C-alpha cells in the first residue's frame, strides 16, 4: 500500500500540470470552478432575493440595476441563475454521489462475490441500461409525482448500473493480480483485501466516469424541470427559468436567451474537464467513450 502511495504522489502532481497544459482541460477547469463558486457563494454574491417579486419591474431587459434583466414576475434573473447553479450542482452531485456509492457496493459484490451472483447482477445492470432512459424516468415520475426527491431517485436509478459495471470489471481484473494472491496466501481476510487493496484502486476510474456524467445529469434536471416534471417552481432551476421565459418568448426573448447560457457553459465546462482528465489519466482511451 505504501509503495503504491509513493508511486502515485508524483503522478498526481503531474496530472494537475498536464491538465493545465491542455487548453480544453484548462477551459473546463475554469468554468467548473466558476460554477462551483457560484453555487457555494450564492447567498453572498446574488444581488437580489431570487424569489422576491416586483411585478412593476417585470420583463425589464438587461440594465445596470438588473444585469440579466427581470422575468415575468419582476424577479432578478442574475440572482435566479446564481441560485440555480446551487440547485443544479446540488442535485447533480447528490444524485451521482448516491448512485456512485450504490454502484461501488454492487460492483464489488459482483466482482469479488460468488460467480452465480455475478452473472445475475451483470444481467440486471445490462438490462436496466438497455431500457430507453427517458421513458423509464417518465414512468417513475408518474408514480412518485414530480419534485426534487423524485428527480434524485430517477437520476440514481438511471446512472448506477453503468457505475456498478465499471467497478465490477475493475475488481475482476484486480482480484487475479499477483499481489492480491500473495495477500490471500498470507492469510488476509476478505475485508482487508476489499478495503485495503481493491477499494483504493477502483475508485479512480469511477470518479472520472462520474465527472463525465455530471453534464448529462445537469441536462436531465434542467430538461425535466423545463417540462414542469422536475424541480417545482418558484425554485430557480435553470429549467424552470427557461420554461417561464418560453411562455413570454415574443414579449421578452432576453429571459430564455439569458437562461440558456449557464446551462450551455456548465455542460461544456464539465465535459471539457472530464475529457481533459480522461486524456491525462488514460491516454489510450482518448475519444472512446461518450454515449
Amino acid at each position, binding site marked *: 500500500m505504501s509503495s503504491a502511495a509513493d508511486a502515485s504522489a508524483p503522478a498526481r502532481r503531474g496530472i494537475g500540470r498536464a491538465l493545465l497544459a491542455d487548453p480544453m482541460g484548462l477551459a473546463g477547469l475554469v468554468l467548473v470552478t466558476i460554477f462551483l463558486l457560484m453555487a457555494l457563494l450564492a447567498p453572498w454574491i446574488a444581488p437580489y432575493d431570487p424569489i422576491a417579486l416586483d411585478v412593476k419591474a417585470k420583463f425589464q431587459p438587461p440594465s445596470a440595476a438588473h444585469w440579466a434583466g427581470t422575468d415575468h414576475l419582476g424577479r432578478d434573473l442574475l440572482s435566479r441563475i446564481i441560485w440555480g447553479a446551487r440547485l443544479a450542482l446540488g442535485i447533480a452531485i447528490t444524485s451521482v454521489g448516491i448512485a456512485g456509492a450504490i454502484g461501488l457496493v454492487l460492483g464489488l459484490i459482483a466482482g469479488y462475490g460468488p460467480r452465480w451472483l455475478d452473472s445475475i447482477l451483470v444481467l440486471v445492470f*445490462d438490462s436496466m441500461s*438497455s*431500457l430507453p*432512459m427517458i421513458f423509464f424516468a417518465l414512468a417513475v415520475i408518474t408514480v412518485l409525482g414530480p419534485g426534487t426527491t423524485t428527480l434524485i431517485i430517477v437520476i440514481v436509478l438511471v446512472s448506477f448500473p453503468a457505475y456498478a459495471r465499471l467497478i465490477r470489471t475493475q475488481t475482476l481484473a484486480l482480484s487475479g493480480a499477483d499481489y492480491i494472491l500473495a495477500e490471500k496466501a498470507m492469510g488476509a481476510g476478505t475485508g482487508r483485501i476489499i478495503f485495503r487493496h481493491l477499494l483504493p484502486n477502483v475508485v479512480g476510474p469511477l470518479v472520472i466516469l462520474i465527472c463525465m456524467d455530471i453534464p448529462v445529469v445537469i441536462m436531465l434536471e434542467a430538461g425535466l424541470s*423545463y417540462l414542469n416534471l422536475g424541480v417545482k417552481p418558484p425554485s430557480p432551476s435553470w429549467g424552470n427559468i427557461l420554461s417561464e421565459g418560453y411562455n413570454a418568448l415574443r414579449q421578452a426573448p432576453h429571459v*430564455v436567451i439569458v437562461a440558456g447560457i449557464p446551462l450551455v457553459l456548465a455542460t461544456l465546462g464539465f465535459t471539457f474537464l472530464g475529457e481533459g482528465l480522461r486524456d491525462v489519466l488514460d491516454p489510450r482511451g482518448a475519444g472512446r467513450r461518450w*454515449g
Partner: protein
Amino acid sequence: MLAYAIRRLGLSVLILIVVMTAMYGMVFLVPGDPASLALGPRATPELKEALRERMGLDQPILTQILYFFGNVLQGDLGIDVWSKRPVLEQILEVFPNTLILGVVALGWALVMGILLGCAAVVWRDSWADRLLGVLSVSVISVPSFVVAIYALIVFAVWLNWLPAIGAGEAGDLGSQIRALILPAFAVGIGWVGYLARLIRASMLEVMEAPHIRTARAFGMRERDIVFRHALRVAIVPTISILAVGFGSILSSAVFVESVFSRPGIGTLITGAVEKRNYPVVMGTVLFMTGFYLLVVTAADLLIARLDPRVRDVLRG
C-alpha cells in the same frame, strides 16, 4: 454473444413488467381513484360504480394486472380515462411524427458526421483536425432543448423563416418539411459531433490495417483510400452505436417536441405524466420500450451478418 443478447432482451422485458406492475399498484395508492377522476366531481356513486366495473377496478389487483398484460399481448393498451379513446390509437396517431423526426435527425447527423470524421482523418493532427475535435465535444455536450429554443428564437421569431410550432398541415408536404427542419436540426446536432468523433477514431484504427498499407504502397491518393476503402470497414461499429443511440435520439425528441409543440410521442407522454393519466403513460412507455428493444436487437443481428468476425464467432 447472441444467446446473451436474447437473455438481456428477456430480462429487459421482465424489468419492464416490474415497472408496469409497480405503476399499476401505485394507481391504488394515489388519492382519488381513476373512475372518479374521469367522471368529475358531479358524478353519482352509481355512475362511478358502473365505470369502475367497466374498467375492471372492482377486481382484485392481481387479476387486474394479469388482465392488463393479457390485453397488451392482444394489442390492446387500454382506454384513456380522460378522452375515452383507446391508448394505442392515440399512440399510432402521433408515432409517425416522432419516427420521422428521429430518422431525419439521425440521417443528417450520419451524413455530416461521416464527412467531418473523414475530413478529420484526411487532415489529421492539423489545426483543422483539432478544431473539429473541440467543436465535436462542444455540440455533444450542449442540451438539445436549449439548441431548440435558440434555433426557434433566431429562425422562427426574429428571421421568421420557419414555423415556430406544430408539424405542418396534413397533406401539405411542403409545410411538413418546413416544420421538420428546426426540430431535426436540434435533435441531430449533438450526434454530428458524436459520430464525427466515432468515425475518426474507428477510421484511424482501420488506417493501420494491412490492406490500407498496401493501397498506400501502390500510390493511391489519400482521399480515395479514406473514402473508398477505410470508410467501409470503419462504419461497422457505428451501426450498433446508432441503434443504442436511437434511445437518446428519442429522449432528445421528447424535449424538442415540447419546445416546438410538435405532436408526437414526447408531447403525448409529457402531457399524460403531468395529468397522471396512467393508461396513456403506461401504454406509451410499453410501446416505445418495445420499439426500442426491437431496433437494438435488429441492429445486433445486422452486425452479426455484416461483420465477418462476429459472424464466425456466432457460427462457432
